[in-house]
């Protein structure tokens, strides 16, 4: 079996003249945790809907488990897509939702689902309509984890969840992922919180693919230098500056390239300080609509 779980080639989706997804080509490999990041309206959700055959592509090719996903049970039986906007039948209680999920996910673990539900403190008999936003998200997370689908996609899974519940989600995801390896795509705004989980990062901006990189490589991809403005200026000349801040006579500049050790030692002796740029900061810089983005990406 191919290790390519998702393969998108020149994938596009237009609504009239608006291009929600514009010529995106990417590959998702088996048994890895992916972060699909980007600003609101960047096209992340549209891509995930197309992968799960809930929306139709305008052009391009899309293969999931080497097959076209639309109306294809070979693919759909292996996919679980948890989305923030999921609707439930009005009459359904939490237990009805779990029982229904059990009908369609071949690897469903009912015992695990109940265990998780208890941990997230969601009442089993409560009507879905009466759940708070956070509990509604928790139900989605429970389905996503207990489905043990070979491709599990979480789109903004923790709207309204408190910090305790979020960290519970990260812990359970990591534990279960270790026991039952699968491909996970996580789309979120809370990049700092999840960045330690992510193995690969894909950034979408304005419907286009902006970044597709191993998380480890990305961590060393940029750094911030701080010090007296004049010294910083001379250090950064000729480098790709993605962010600058001036405070009094001091300046900090973030640079989009790997730091060379010899250069760092030389600069430190001049009184400059270095710090890594977190993935969240990096993505904020890259997707912030300013001239810096174009410079960085070129």
């Amino acid at each position: 079996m191919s290790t390519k779980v998702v393969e998108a080639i020149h994938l596009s989706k237009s609504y009239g003249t608006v291009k929600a997804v514009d010529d995106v080509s990417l590959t998702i490999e088996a048994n890895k945790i992916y972060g699909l990041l980007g600003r609101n309206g960047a096209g992340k959700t549209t891509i995930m809907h197309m992968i799960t055959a809930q929306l139709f592509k305008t052009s391009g090719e899309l293969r999931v488990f080497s097959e076209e996903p639309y109306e294809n049970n070979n693919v759909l039986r292996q996919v679980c897509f948890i989305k923030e906007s999921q609707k439930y039948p009005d009459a359904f209680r939490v237990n009805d939702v779990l029982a229904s999920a059990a009908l369609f996910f071949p690897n469903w673990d009912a015992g695990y689902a109940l265990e998780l539900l208890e941990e997230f403190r969601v009442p089993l008999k409560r009507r879905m309509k009466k759940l708070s936003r956070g509990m509604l998200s928790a139900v989605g997370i429970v389905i996503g984890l207990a489905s043990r689908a070979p491709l599990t996609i979480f789109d903004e899974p923790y709207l309204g969840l408190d910090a305790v519940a979020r960290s519970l989600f990260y812990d359970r995801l990591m534990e279960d992922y270790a026991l039952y390896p699968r491909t996970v795509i996580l789309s979120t705004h809370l990049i700092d919180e999840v960045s330690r989980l992510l193995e690969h990062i894909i950034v979408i901006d304005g419907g286009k693919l902006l970044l597709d990189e191993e998380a480890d490589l990305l961590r060393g991809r940029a750094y911030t230098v701080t010090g007296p403005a004049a010294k910083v200026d001379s250090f950064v000349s000729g480098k790709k500056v993605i962010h600058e801040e001036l405070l009094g006579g001091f300046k900090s500049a973030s640079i989009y390239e790997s730091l060379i050790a010899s250069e760092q030692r030389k600069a430190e002796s001049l009184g400059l300080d270095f710090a890594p740029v977190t993935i969240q900061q990096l993505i904020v810089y890259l997707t912030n609509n300013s001239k810096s983005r174009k410079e960085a990406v070129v």
Partner: protein
Amino acid sequence: MHPVQGVVKMYMREKMGWVLLPWIILGSSFFINLFIAALMPMDEHLTTGGIASIFVYMGVIGILSMSQTFPFALGLSVRRKDFFAGTILMAVMVSLFTSIVLYLLSYIEGFGLVGWGVQLYFFHLPYLSEGNVAEQILVFFSISLCLFVTGFTIGCFFRRFGKIGMTTLAIVSIGGGTLLSYMATYFDWWVTIGHYLADLTAVNMAYTLLPISVVLGFIAYLLLRRATA
């Protein structure tokens, strides 16, 4: 388990909406009529069309299955084709159940506890309750299924084309209907239509409704194939 079976089982979790509620509505209508019939002089018959509520309700569930169950099923990675097959199977089973129970009640009303002792004719109706057992059940069944499929098709149309599409469809249908009625007047079709309807027996009506249901179901399927949550 086959996903079609899964869809049916998912609907079964909504027994209240699919099975109990229509009978509660019909039951309350029946008891109100029973009360009125009891107050009336003994020599008067009371024949009502309260039975229509259960058929209208089937149309409502048809719409609801698209607005509520479809987005949920899609969220559980159910194929559209399987959702369609499961929904129609569920509607056929419920319609069959409804028509058999209605027939039994009609039999009791007509031949057992004649008029429930108060001359009320709620289930055993002139025109509908004619022909043999199979024919009477078929009449109830075809009305129930046809209304369900009609509601379901409307639901699919809405999912596919949204509010603007729905409004356009409504305007076009009203416009088309008006035009047809003017044409009927102009070309003197009304008499023919009237004769056709007057001559149409309940069983023949049932035979007409079944192919209509099939055609509507086919349209619903085409719409559903391109519908999104």
